[in-house]
């Protein structure tokens, strides 16, 4: 076996070992520090806590006479393209929005950042911008507000609100 082959096998074996270690929360902080290029993947989508909630972004307007419109769903997914299983870059936008929702939930749990500070964070601005542009405003709208709704269940969904923004000028 050549020296190049031995070296290649060693690198791949080391990569595999580090990848396996990275799945354990105990080693994650150390490995993340050296994972700037994101070459060490993590597969924790279904374990230890499988996702059983779905997220929904909703928006409503406040009109110049003070009237509130009904809540409207903000469309996040575009129709799946025919060859989406091969190439579907549109999925990135929904992933970014999902990340933004998760980021807001994480920020809400932090003790050193209050509700009043959330509106200046990147995930909040991202959701606000997307919602404001994805849903046409009511003709009389002067302000709008967004909320993150979580649902559980299948046939009869249970809804909970996990975040409610303040009103912002249209």
């Amino acid at each position, binding site marked *: 076996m050549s020296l190049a082959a031995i070296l290649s096998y060693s690198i791949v074996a080391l990569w595999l070992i580090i990848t396996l270690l990275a799945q354990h929360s105990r080693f994650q902080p150390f490995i993340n520090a050296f994972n700037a290029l994101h070459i060490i993947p*993590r597969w*924790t*989508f279904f374990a230890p*806590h499988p996702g059983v*909630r*779905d*997220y*929904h*972004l*909703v928006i409503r307007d406040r009109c110049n006479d003070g009237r509130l419109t*009904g*809540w409207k*769903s903000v*469309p*996040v*997914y575009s129709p799946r393209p025919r060859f989406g299983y091969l190439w579907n870059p549109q999925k990135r936008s*929904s*992933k*970014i*929005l*999902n*990340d*933004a*929702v*998760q*980021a807001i*939930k*994480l*920020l*809400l*749990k*932090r003790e050193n*950042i*209050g509700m*009043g*500070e*959330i*509106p*200046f*964070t*990147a*995930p909040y*601005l991202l959701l606000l*911008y997307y919602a*404001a542009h994805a849903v046409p405003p009511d003709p009389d709208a002067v*302000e709008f507000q967004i*909320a993150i*709704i*979580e*649902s559980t269940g299948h046939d009869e*969904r249970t*809804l*909970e*609100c*996990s975040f*409610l923004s*303040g*009103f*912002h*000028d249209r």
Partner: protein
Amino acid sequence: MTTLTEMELAGLDPVIAARKMTSDVSDKYENIVIPIGNAGESQAGDNAGLSGGEGLSLDALMRLRQSALNQRRSGQR
């Protein structure tokens, strides 16, 4: 993320009112962080040191944030 049905949307007000009644933010929910992107890496300083913002337009919020971040950068030099 999906959309809600018309009936679910029509029944959202009590859901949101229930939210206002509790100071418990989120999680009781599962601690799921999908480790792609920077969702798990939001820093306390992510808000650029600002607070408030209610009533401001999106443009104003972004302008204030950018201005605060610029000031912070110039202060670090």
